[in-house]
Structure formats: structure tokens, C-alpha cells
């Protein structure tokens, strides 16, 4: 429907671009949520290690948590960066 009307074609293209953009936004949000879940698991491991006196667990879990945080920052930066339409 709409044939070769340039306005209809442009509107379809804009919708497609917006849909792609939203997919990227949801993918980023899901990735950050997964990273957060991993961080909470690491935090639980660290708390249990701390109360049980297993100090060897603390530094690796903090490093893992730091890596997750950096990845989350990178994803937020990617989402916040200004980009040209359609890219």
C-alpha cells in the first residue's frame, strides 16, 4: 500500500531506522541488567567469603565486579554518544 509515493517510502525508512535504534537500546539495557546480575552474584560471593574468613575470594570478585562496571559504563557511553541517523 502506498505504491512509490516518496513520502510513504521515507516514512517507512524512518520507521525501520527507529525500530533498529530501539532494538539497540533494548539490547544495551538487557546487557547492563545481565552485568548487574553478575555483579550481585559476585557481591554475594565476596560477602560470604568475608564472613567465612576466606579472604582469597575478595580480590578476584572485586576485579570481576570492576570489569562488569567498566563494561556497563562503556555500554552507557555507547548509548549516550551522539550519532547520525541510521547508523
Amino acid at each position, binding site marked *: 500500500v502506498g505504491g512509490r509515493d516518496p513520502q510513504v517510502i521515507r516514512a517507512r525508512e524512518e520507521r525501520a531506522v527507529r525500530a533498529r535504534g530501539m532494538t539497540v537500546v533494548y539490547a*544495551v*539495557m538487557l546487557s*547492563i541488567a545481565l552485568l*548487574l546480575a553478575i555483579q550481585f552474584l559476585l*557481591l554475594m560471593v565476596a560477602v560470604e567469603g568475608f564472613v*567465612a574468613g576466606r579472604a582469597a575470594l575478595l*580480590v578476584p570478585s572485586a576485579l570481576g565486579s570492576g570489569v*562488569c562496571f567498566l563494561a556497563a559504563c562503556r*555500554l552507557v557511553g555507547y*548509548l549516550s554518544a551522539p550519532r547520525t541517523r541510521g547508523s
Partner: protein
Amino acid sequence: MSPTPAWKEDFPVSWVDDHFVTRREFTKSLALVSCAAFGANGALVALGAWERGRRAEKTEPRKIEGAGRLPVGGSMVFEYPGPGDVCLLVRLEPDRFVAFGQKCTHLGCPVLYRAETRRLHCPCHEGYFDAEDGKVVSGPPPRPLPRVNLERRGDELWAVAILR
């Protein structure tokens, strides 16, 4: 009279607009939560290092008050090497005492002495330790209890060292 009240002209932000959160803002708040989780992990590392440093300090012998009044098969708590480090003294026989750190090596719950089985029991996750040497008999604890070395000085009982 103007249809819009004066306060609305001064603060033209509507309730709905004020509470509207964009996906980007929400994502940024997720990153803040991630930062907080990382901070909490870092704080635990710092606390662990502080705790290790405190343990490494030289411990002074300390007299255990009231040990002589303890009945055979009885137990009492005392603090060693420092305030807040709770240990459990057990009188196994008239002339035989043993003492261990009271924190279970699983998740830090206080252990209790069970005279009928001669075992130390952690009620949180059903961990059992041998009262003779503090070794794990059953349950989830991964290591023996830290043992306190005791010394008799006349009629007094002194804690002289803790072996972790």
C-alpha cells in the same frame, strides 16, 4: 482572571513530565547501581585487608576470668586476643581445658558446646566440630576452628596465642 494560576506559570513542569524517565536515564541509573555494587565489593576488600592487619598484630597473653568456677562439661565465652574476638572455653575434664574461636568457619555463626556429644555445634547450618581439637566432624564448615593455646599460671588460666 487568567485561566492558569500564578504558581503554574512560575513552575510550568507538569507532574507527568517531571516523573517521565527516558530509557537512557534509566540505563544511566543502572550504571550507577553497577558502580555501587563495585564500590561495595571494594569496601569488602578494604575491610578484609584491615581485618588481616589487625590479626597480624602481636597478641598479648590474657587471663581468663572465672575459668576455675567452670564445671566439668561446661563452657564459657571470653574475649581474645582483642575486644570483640569471642572465644569459647570448654572444661572437658577436671584438669583439662580447651578453647577455640567461637565464630564458625562456614559463615561466622557462634558455635556452642554440646557436652553430651563432646562436640561444638553451629546451629545455623548444622556444622559440628570435635571439642578435642576443633576439627570439622560434619556439616558445611570448610576449616577447623581457630584454637586458643592455654597456659596454667598457678590457679589461673591464661590464653597465650591463637592458631588460625
